[in-house]
């Protein structure tokens, strides 16, 4: 010992000296010799670069799936065709800097916006659902535009002579502007592009509509046409405010939630607008009255603004209002931040809300925007945000995988442990059972079971069913492994000792032997976890696993089974594929690393 101490400083290099300074003069070599096998395995594992990369990668994906859904909440039942197949990217509400300071009119379309400055120049920004939107008519053709409105995939605009222009989607009669409006001369008061429909209102109170009437069936009650002050439209209905301050629905069918207009406000309404499920009206005393279905809190008007509201504008599920002091307030759905109105630098002149965003134009012509800026990973065919579904889908895929592995590991340990320890007839019987279960063709059997049993049950029960099917069919591998290890361990002295002490057989197997082979079990369970995730994804992919609206990485890819989607909407399959692939590769790397660490012999392979 003394000799060693004397020799040590001579051997030390700069690095060792530095290490000694940090940790103190501890004799390092001796400690290494005394390491337990477990610690040595851990050390080997921590030095395995591939395995550590796997751990790192898996942890990041895991944490993202657990933590991020709290920041990006999702309504699984939400669907919106107006947002279908939007390409990934941001900038939907990034107002062009050339427009700042001279903005005149602005309008929110489905995934794009259109703006107009005081000189009549048109600006378009965002993600365009159709390339036809880029065919903006030249200024020689249009003259000075003063009014603009964006719809699902088309734009209408009017110049100072009252001529109406339209571009973008030209089907369903959207390009057939009524003759009076095309010629000009009418004093256009309000102009709106909607869902496959365009609407215009003149100063004389006459309304025009053209485009598809498939969704919106417009019929004018008697005495309304020619007496209109303002109109508002959603995907379900068009309503008008007459010059007498009354709100009238332009619909033959009078029994929807929108038409239950509070009687006491009729006659004193100054402004109103419609979301998809509700309506809000401002009366002359500055109060806001709301009615309709309370979806996403659109009816929860902030109490403090009552009595101070000047005008209102509505998006799909939110309202934005201007108060008498020129500030703006929004409420309703806040999924994309559209209900979080910012403080403005000066008083707002006009607020334009539409779809999932709002713009406020101030007195000095500057524009402030809030709401949906874009989708990080695009949207799918039902307009659902791929990124948010990826997060909850990951949680679901991992949960199903983990629980299936827990089920199969428990069955495997029970069967393998009893079989290996008991031997003889019990062993023979259990091993034949194992053989039978592993003879059952796995994937076809899963498909049939989930199809037949899962036909008449709810979504949650279906998820549980998938977990149970996967767990109950995938235990033979682990049972064989446990049996082999138990066979090797049962002749050890500690088992004899336990027997001599009178420990029950069950106790010997599961208290004494199993803890000794737990490392083997963990390695196998890790590798099985990846396999179960793959099987679940495959099942969901062909439509026999977890079903919609619940998301898993597999069923997100279900829609990508045809060439059109693969070619045109790459974001719908690339992101789930990459994450699923990364996740299973890292789990397999971790499993391999663990096996190498526990069984050093396998590393020589």
């Amino acid at each position, binding site marked *: 010992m003394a000799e060693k101490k004397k020799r040590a400083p001579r051997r030390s290099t700069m690095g060792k000296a530095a290490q000694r300074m940090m940790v103190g003069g501890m004799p390092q070599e001796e400690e290494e010799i005394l390491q337990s096998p477990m610690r040595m395995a851990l050390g080997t594992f921590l030095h395995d670069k591939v395995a550590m990369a796997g751990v790192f990668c898996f942890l990041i994906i895991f944490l993202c799936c657990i933590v991020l859904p709290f920041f990006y909440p999702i309504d699984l039942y939400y669907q919106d065709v107006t947002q279908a197949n939007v390409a990934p990217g941001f900038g939907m509400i990034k107002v062009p800097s050339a427009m700042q300071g001279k903005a005149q009119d602005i309008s929110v379309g489905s995934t794009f916006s259109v703006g107009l400055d005081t000189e009549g120049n048109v600006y378009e920004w965002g993600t365009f659902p159709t390339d036809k939107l880029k065919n903006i008519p030249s200024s020689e053709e249009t003259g000075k535009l003063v009014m603009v409105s964006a719809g699902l995939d088309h734009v209408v605009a009017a110049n100072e002579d009252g001529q109406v222009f339209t571009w973008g989607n030209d089907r369903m009669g959207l390009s057939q502007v009524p003759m009076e409006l095309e010629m000009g001369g009418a004093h256009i008061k309000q102009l709106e592009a909607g869902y496959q429909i365009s609407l215009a209102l003149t100063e004389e109170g006459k309304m025009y509509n053209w485009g598809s009437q498939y969704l919106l069936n417009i019929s004018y009650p008697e005495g309304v046409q020619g007496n209109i002050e303002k109109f508002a439209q959603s995907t379900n209905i068009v309503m008008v405010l007459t010059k007498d301050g009354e709100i009238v629905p332009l619909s033959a069918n009078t029994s929807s939630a929108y038409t239950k207009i509070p009687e006491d406000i009729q006659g004193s309404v100054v402004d109103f607008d419609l979301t998809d499920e509700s309506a809000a009206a401002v009366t002359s005393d500055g109060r806001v009255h709301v009615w309709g279905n309370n979806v996403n809190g659109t009816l929860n008007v902030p109490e403090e603004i009552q009595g101070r509201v000047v005008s209102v504008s509505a998006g799909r599920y939110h309202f934005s209002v201007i108060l008498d002091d020129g500030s703006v307030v929004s409420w309703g759905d806040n999924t994309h931040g559209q209900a979080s109105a910012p403080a403005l630098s000066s008083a707002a002149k006009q607020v334009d809300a539409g779809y999932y965003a709002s713009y406020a134009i101030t007195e000095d012509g500057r524009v402030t925007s809030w709401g949906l800026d874009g989708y990080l990973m695009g949207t799918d065919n039902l307009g659902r945000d791929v990124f948010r579904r990826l997060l909850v889908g990951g949680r679901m895929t991992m949960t199903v995988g983990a629980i299936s592995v827990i089920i199969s590991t428990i069955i495997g340990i029970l069967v393998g442990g009893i079989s290996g320890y008991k031997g003889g007839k019990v062993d023979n019987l259990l091993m034949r059972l194992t053989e039978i279960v592993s003879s059952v063709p796995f994937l*076809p059997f899963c498909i049939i079971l989930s199809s037949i049993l899962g036909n008449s049950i709810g979504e949650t029960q279906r998820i549980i069913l998938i977990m149970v099917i996967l767990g109950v069919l995938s235990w033979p591998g682990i049972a064989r492994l446990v049996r082999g290890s138990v066979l090797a361990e049962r002749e050890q002295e500690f088992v004899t000792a336990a027997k001599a002490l009178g420990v029950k057989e069950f106790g010997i197997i599961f208290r004494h032997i199993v803890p000794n082979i737990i490392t083997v079990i963990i390695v196998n369970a890790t590798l099985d976890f990846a396999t179960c995730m793959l099987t679940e994804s495959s099942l969901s*992919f062909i439509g026999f696993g977890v079903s919609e609206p619940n998301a898993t990485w597999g069923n997100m*890819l279900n829609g990508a089974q045809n060439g059109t989607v693969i070619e045109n909407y790459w974001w719908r399959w690339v992101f789930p594929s990459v994450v699923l692939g990364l996740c299973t590769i890292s789990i*397999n790397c971790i499993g391999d690393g663990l096996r190498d660490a526990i069984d050093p012999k396998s590393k020589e*392979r």
Partner: protein
Amino acid sequence: MGKGRYLLKRLIYIVFVFFIISILMFFIYKSMPGDPVESMLGSLKTSMRPDAYQELYDRTAERLGVNQPLPVQYFAWISNMLTGNFGYSTQYQRQVIDVIGAPMFNTIMLNLFTMIVVFLVSIFLGIATAVHKNGVFDKGVQVVTIVGYSIPSFIIALLAIFAFAVKIPIFPISGIRTPGSEATGIAAALDVAWHMALPVLVMSVSGIGGITRYVRASMIDALRMDYIKTARAKGLREKTVIYVHAFRNALIPIVTITTWWIIGLFGGSVVIESVFLWNGLGKMLIDGLMNRDFSIVLTMQMFYVLLSLAGNVLMDIAYTIVDPRVRLEN
């Protein structure tokens, strides 16, 4: 114990397993939703007088034997199954036996080609990486194989479609032959081969990943044995040492894993057939489930069971060939 007796014993055991599984299948068959008599009579219920319908119902029930005790029904069912009487497909309006021929051929062809590709590639790769262990080539192959077996086949399929059918359109996206093609003989065979290229490629990538790793591991184990040292000491050529002495011994674990892989391959081709709209058994199974055509479903399931049992028999035969010790055991 001789080779013959060993095989006979295994065969008897497998027949026993078959009956156990078939009982399981029978219960699935029984738990299928819907009244078989009613579905057989179809729309007659609405068009006939109630008393006449009841009489017809009873007679059909008698004929189908649904009133008899379960064991009797089981034996009637299993003897039908074994004699090729798989029932009537409501989806195709024909006997099941008449409609499963072509899909069965397609599936077997697809899987057979995949097997050939996988064996050729993975045995070569496995031996090469084992011999040059820890070299650059070995490391590269290791990375590729771990990716190959970790990524689910349907993702590889999507990537392959994107690369070779959309971006560089050299292969068709889906289907089994060009629609409306009148070609016969060699031209028709080439057309099918052209359609088969992508599915075979996709299924091979997943297969090669797993099998290569096993071949490599068992080759490394075999190469460490003393008899290899002896063979080298005798002055045998390195090729003989590797391909005769080492590979023959490495085959035993490979046979086991290969059998499981082949069974899994047929099951897994369900997904690939569904992606590539390959008119095979897997697609037929899914279509049958979608259309609630249970005669088809059950026949498919029976085929898969038989296949996996046949795989077990083949494994036993292969064992007796590659491993002389099997004859001495038991």
